[in-house]
């Protein structure tokens, strides 16, 4: 019996595999989008933190420069530490801005491919599944017709 219906069983297995594939890849696509959103949010949060640190650093540096301007020439005020901190925060902020642009560019490029794949999952795959169901039904009907009368 296994040999006679092996093709039908194999087609049913393929049909089930296609259904599982569609659901699993939908999940994969959703997780990819979630990861993109998470990274964008993370970069935005880092940029926000750095902007606050930069503003604070600039205020401290400015206050130091004021103190330096009013200081006794024999006791100069060293503001280089504040200057370095401002420079460092500024560079880090710029680095984040560059990464945000790269992520946006890559995500834009990715969206075309992702859109085609989503269309395939939503439209083409269900049609393939329906096609297989029809083939299976046709084979089963043919076997019933050919089955010997007891």
């Amino acid at each position, binding site marked *: 019996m296994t040999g006679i219906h092996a093709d039908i069983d194999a*087609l049913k297995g393929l049909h089930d595999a296609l259904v599982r594939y569609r659901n699993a890849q939908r999940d994969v*696509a959703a997780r990819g989008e979630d990861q993109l959103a998470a990274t964008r949010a993370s970069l935005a949060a880092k940029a926000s933190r750095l902007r606050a640190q930069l503003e604070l650093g600039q205020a401290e540096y400015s206050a130091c420069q004021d103190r330096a301007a009013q200081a006794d020439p024999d006791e100069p005020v060293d503001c280089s530490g504040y200057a370095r901190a401002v420079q460092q925060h500024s560079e880090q902020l710029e680095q984040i801005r560059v*990464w945000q642009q790269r992520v946006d560019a890559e995500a834009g490029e990715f969206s075309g*491919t992702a859109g*085609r794949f989503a269309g395939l999952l939503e439209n083409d795959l269900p049609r*393939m599944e329906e096609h297989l169901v029809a083939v299976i039904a046709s084979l089963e009907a043919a076997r019933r017709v050919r089955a010997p009368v007891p």
Partner: protein
Amino acid sequence: MTARPDQDGDQQLRLLGDAWDKAAEHWRDGPARQFGTAQLTPLLQESRCYLEALRKLMDLLETAERETDG
């Protein structure tokens, strides 16, 4: 630890390929060839293309996170 989505997608693609190989052992008529050529092969190709793009994007996101830490 959760696998990256592109890696899970690759695994699903392998499973579908295995299912097709198994089905093709028993389903070998004209409609089978037509199904393989006209429907399954484009699906597998488009899937590979998507998963490669997803892998690139996930690599970039990981690098972006790493490079902007600290």
